[in-house]
């Protein structure tokens, strides 16, 4: 598998990024804050109003360094992509599948199997590790029902039925998600998923982690030549990266949810790091965001063995490996798309 390089996150709003030889230079007013060699980077992600010089944009595009602009709250704004990404033959086949509900369903159901499988094993792991803290009966019940739903998903050939099963499984998982929060229960609780806007700390964290993950997923899909905007489960909608959302389904729990839970349970973040706006929406403060990004970066470096490829790689390459496997399935090398099944 390829090597995982670093991502540079720029969180200070009044910085300007420019190019100096083979380096990226971070400036504030006239003073230079930092300088990083481009060859160590695979992505640059800016939050806030940072400007970027056209020269640096060009340098990132030619080197396939993903340059993304986000709002301070982590909403995606824009990205710079070079020309070498893309694969006409692969994309045409992707579009053919996307236009065919039955073929789409056969790919999408594996992603949903991945999602449910990973959710199930998050719960199973919790029952094993924290027997005394967790309502075992409830957990085991949900876990068993997830297995049942998975078996049904395996046979599904219609997208609407698949969406229905996916929804049922999500309700089951969400119903016990709060049990997985073992620390700081006064500040961090989960009473349901809401995202526009997030109304509690946990939802704010989840939204932010999903944004980071979807960003990595988009880059990974484009790096292997797929079109991140044409999906199988998620329907086309202008500006929505449907395929990234599709593949992300199987990684949400295992990658983002577990990440958020460990931030809370290891007390890396605290309730004081969040503030509530007048309309009830919750945002994290700059320091907390920095802690989250740093932890996210560190988590990406952790090593795992890929369950299907059986190959050692860092967590950060999982989106890439799934994109690659999807591309190889679409081009006919693999009989099915192998989801990331993590135990």
């Amino acid at each position, binding site marked *: *598998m*390829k090597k995982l390089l670093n991502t540079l996150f720029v969180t200070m709003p009044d910085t300007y990024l420019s190019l100096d030889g083979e380096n990226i230079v971070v400036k504030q007013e006239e003073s230079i804050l930092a300088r990083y060699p481009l060859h160590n980077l695979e992505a640059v992600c800016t939050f806030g109003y940072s400007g970027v010089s056209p020269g640096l944009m060009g340098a990132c595009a030619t080197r396939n360094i993903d340059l993304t602009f986000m709002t301070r709250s982590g909403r995606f704004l824009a990205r710079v992509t070079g020309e*070498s990404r*893309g*694969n*006409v*033959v*692969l994309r045409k086949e992707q579009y053919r599948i996307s236009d065919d509900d039955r073929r789409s369903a056969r790919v999408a159901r*594996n992603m949903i*199997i991945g999602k449910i*499988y990973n959710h199930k094993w998050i719960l199973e792991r919790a029952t094993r590790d924290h027997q005394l803290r967790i309502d075992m009966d409830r957990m085991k019940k949900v876990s068993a029902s997830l*297995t049942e739903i*998975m*078996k049904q998903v*395996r046979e599904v050939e219609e997208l609407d039925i698949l969406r229905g099963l996916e929804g049922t499984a999500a309700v089951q998982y969400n119903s016990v998600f709060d049990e997985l929060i073992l620390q700081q229960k006064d500040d961090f609780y989960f009473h349901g998923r809401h995202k526009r806007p997030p109304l509690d700390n946990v939802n704010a964290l989840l939204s932010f982690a999903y944004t980071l993950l979807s960003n990595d997923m988009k880059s990974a899909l484009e790096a*292997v*030549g797929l079109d991140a905007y044409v999906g199988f489960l998620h329907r086309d909608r202008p500006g929505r990266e449907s395929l990234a959302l599709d593949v992300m389904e199987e990684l949400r729990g295992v990658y983002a949810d577990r990440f958020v839970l460990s931030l809370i349970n290891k007390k890396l973040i605290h309730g004081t790091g969040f503030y509530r706006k007048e309309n009830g929406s919750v945002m994290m403060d700059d320091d907390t965001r920095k802690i989250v990004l740093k932890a996210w970066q560190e988590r990406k470096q952790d090593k795992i063995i890929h*369950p*299907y*490829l059986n*190959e050692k790689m860092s967590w950060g390459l999982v989106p890439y490996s799934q994109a*690659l*496997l999807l591309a*190889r*399935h679409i*081009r*006919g*090398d*693999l*009989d*099915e*798309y*192998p*989801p990331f*099944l993590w*135990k």
Partner: protein
Amino acid sequence: MQGYNEEDYLLLSGIQHFNFCRRQWALIHIEQQWEENVRTIEGNHLHRKADQPMIREKRGDKLVVRALPVHSRELGITGICDVVEFVRDPLGVPLAGEEGTYLPFPVEYKRGKPKRNDSDHAQLVAQVMCLEEMLVCEISKGYFYYDEIKHRVEVIITASDRERVRASLQEMRHYFERNHTPKAKAGPHCQSCSLQHICVPEILNKKSVSSFIESRIAE
């Protein structure tokens, strides 16, 4: 003369990829995938020297031309010769703007040292065939210049070499027209392939995804 249209030409450099690995060729030329590694970057660096189309040297009986674009309508290929040496020869052909008659010999720049496999060889043969068609002459040999030994090696081009190139091209065209990326056998050569991270040769030897999923769900 019958032949291919320009827009259907394949890239001459692809013959080398194709002989190295059919799948590598398809990934580059059909799927437009490319990834640099140490070897390709060394190759680029080496070619910077050869790739200077404006330099034209005359040394006694020799005229040295760099980065010469060539094609063959009959074979349907196009490419660039790193260096072509035109040597004054009574059995040669006249060149526009030059006195006397000349025979052309392509010189292909290669990183490293002479290799045992012949994936490079076919590329040189194809260059010879292009030059023969464009200049209407017969060429008996070409050269490799190896970066590591800083030395050139003469290569005699035989009729069976030409036949092999024709056969490769026919096979390439077959894949190209169907947009088909063949599965190939993974082997030791995968280690030196710049596309191994895109190709993922291991997956071709893996058990089926169906059985992988079935066995996991059943846990």
